[in-house]
């Protein structure tokens, strides 16, 4: 048994961390993450040069990765840097196409085209079962009608893959050029951008009419990516909090000397270990029948324990942590808000519970 990353992945993770340290320090991140387009196209280009999108694609489709541990190798450093580049949607779109064995363009693997996968809707933010967006045949092609909601990264996508229900009742995957979509873009409370996508008989090209399984794979990849992102953030929050306890002086000593606070720092580190381990579990299972179940477990723990880590990081820092200038504030916001992407902790536990019966 060996839990250490392969030398290749270790190297990619280190290069990625270096790149992000160079281009996305805390001040720079605050300057771009909350202002349209809520990311930095130059940084996107750097990530692509490094091969981050290609890392998410198997060799058969022109990439050099695609395994669960490739996803975590990319997203953990992206999380630690609070990177708002729209990589999640691109990764999920890639995962869907790979699962369908559909063609993946060179531009997509290189990141010259930015894809996003649009699934969630206002009344159906999580899951596939109740989607209301429809696809209807129109001549040789298709038309999409409905609304996709809070689609992270859609504000600067060039192509949108849409999950929609068609006449036979199944869920298909359709491609729409971003220019054809009525779109309202906005920033998010934790930084980064998203959009509401309105479709009204919008022309689309069908990639697959039986996309349930591929969309489940894409969701699994997304849950894994978000969990790895959460681990990257949680590690930094735990580190920053311990540093603060060691340096902040009150009552004539570092507050780390107070046992009540020591125990809370330990609790935070216990939560972090759980997150690390469940994410390893989910990464190892990706692509196997246990993949979706373990990814749901990872996201469940991220939702529950991630919030506790974020809240405790703020509380132990005190007032300084509720300021815009404090990095811990932005880390905590992102860690908390990850819960609301692709199914929160309650949703994951409901899904897992249904599978029990």
């Amino acid at each position, binding site marked *: 048994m060996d839990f250490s990353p392969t030398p290749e992945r270790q190297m990619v993770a280190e290069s990625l961390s270096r790149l992000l340290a160079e281009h996305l320090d805390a001040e720079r991140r605050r300057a771009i993450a909350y202002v349209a387009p809520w990311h930095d196209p130059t940084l996107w280009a750097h990530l692509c040069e490094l091969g981050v999108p290609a890392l998410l694609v198997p060799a058969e489709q022109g990439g050099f990765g695609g395994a669960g541990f490739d996803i975590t190798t990319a997203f953990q450093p992206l999380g630690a840097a609070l990177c708002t580049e729209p990589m999640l949607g691109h990764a999920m779109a890639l995962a869907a196409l790979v699962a369908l064995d559909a063609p993946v363009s060179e531009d997509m693997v290189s990141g010259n085209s930015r894809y996003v996968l649009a699934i969630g809707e206002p009344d159906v933010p*999580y899951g596939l079962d109740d989607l209301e967006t429809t696809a209807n045949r129109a001549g040789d092609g298709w038309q999409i009608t409905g609304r996709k909601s809070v689609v992270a990264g859609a504000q600067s996508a060039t192509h949108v893959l849409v999950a929609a229900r068609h006449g036979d009742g199944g869920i298909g995957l359709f491609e729409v050029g971003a220019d054809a979509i009525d779109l309202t873009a906005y*920033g998010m*409370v*934790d930084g980064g951008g*998203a959009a509401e996508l*309105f479709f009204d008989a919008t022309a689309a090209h069908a990639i697959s009419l039986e996309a349930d399984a591929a969309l489940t794979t894409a969701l699994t990849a997304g849950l894994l990516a978000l969990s790895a992102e959460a681990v990257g953030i949680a590690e930094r929050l735990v580190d920053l909090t311990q540093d603060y306890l060691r340096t902040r002086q009150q009552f004539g000593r570092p507050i780390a000397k107070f046992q009540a606070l020591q125990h809370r720092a330990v609790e935070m580190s216990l939560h972090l270990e759980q997150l690390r381990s469940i994410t390893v579990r989910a990464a190892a299972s990706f692509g196997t029948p246990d993949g979706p179940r373990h990814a749901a477990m990872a996201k469940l723990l991220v939702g529950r324990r991630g919030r506790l880590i974020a809240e405790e990081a703020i509380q132990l820092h005190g007032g300084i942590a*509720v300021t815009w200038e404090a990095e811990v504030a932005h880390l905590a916001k992102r860690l908390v*808000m990850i819960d609301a992407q692709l199914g*929160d902790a309650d949703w994951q536990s409901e899904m897992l519970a249904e599978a029990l019966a």
Partner: protein
Amino acid sequence: MDIRYSDDELAFRTEIKTGLAEIVWPELAAKVRAGSSLEKPEHDRFHAALNARGWLAGHWPTEHGGLGWDPVQRHIFDEELYAADAPRVVPFGLNMLAPVLMAFGSPEQQAYHLPRILSGEDWWCQGYSEPGAGSDLASLRTRAVQEGDSYIVNGQKTWTTLAQHANKIFCLVRTGTEGKPQEGISFLLMDMQAPGVTRRPIRTLDGGFEVNEVFFDNVRVPVADRVGAENAGWTIAKYLLNHERTNISLVGESTHALEQLKAQARQTRRRGQPLIKNPHFAARVIEIEADLEAHRITNLRMLSDAQRKGAPGPEVSMLKITGTRIRQAINDLARRGLGPAAAPFPSEALSGNAALAAPEHANAAARYFNNRKISIYGGSNEIQANILAKHVLDI
């Protein structure tokens, strides 16, 4: 035992409810519901309307122009404020400095300052915390050195709430370095417009502006503007913190917020039905509701006790810990209930057809993050636990 309100108290509640319905104008209520911060003219107009009825100082003793409300009446008033979607009364002059002046101020100080607090002529802010003196407030370092009939003040205060609107600040300053740190502190009344006072806004994590840093560079303060004796400021500070803690149960606010949460969960649809029908979510709402019901009675028990004894004891620290936990739990559930719809920021970016939630619910995430402060400020919950361990449990 009779835990009901008396007939007089019920009549009082009706009077307040009717009056507030006349005072609170619709745009104000909408802003309060949406959690938007108010402009100074809005604060001023509301302040004046309450003052016109005498309710601003309802809890002040009659000899100082108040109505002499007891703690239970004050609590009823507080509950009705939230029920009416009225803003919180800005407490610094009215509920914090005023009791200090009544207990420690000279007759001249009382005669000058108390009417100006009521009229709204003076907006006070609180100069307590410093960058190096938070939980350990007694280690504060802002210095006041006497020179003739003035003090010369140098130093910095922080977390000064709404200092951007204030023309006055009451400050704890160091006037002595002998003995324990607590023994060299004095309580000064200062003018925000005095030469040498500067303020810098602090942006909070939700992007808002409500707290500030205040800097003093050789600011001249007449010795006559000291409250109480020199180096007796710590006693006053403790008295004031105790007063700050009398209204910290957040029962009124949480009751109202829980109703908002339920309304939100009835409007939100999940898996083809209202979120409130989801057993998982409903169980969380119910657990908070049970906690709030218990906390409501704890609060009334302590109020009733204070009514008899005249002043609240250290056990009110319980109210802060439990009250902030409940309030934060409601914030948390409101954010989670909205799911991804809580993420857009500011929520006003989505209006009309693109809106994802009613305006009073849409800012749930920003409010959740902003309210992490309530377990930190006014004596963090850890400090409250220290007080309980030492003065209530006696261990």
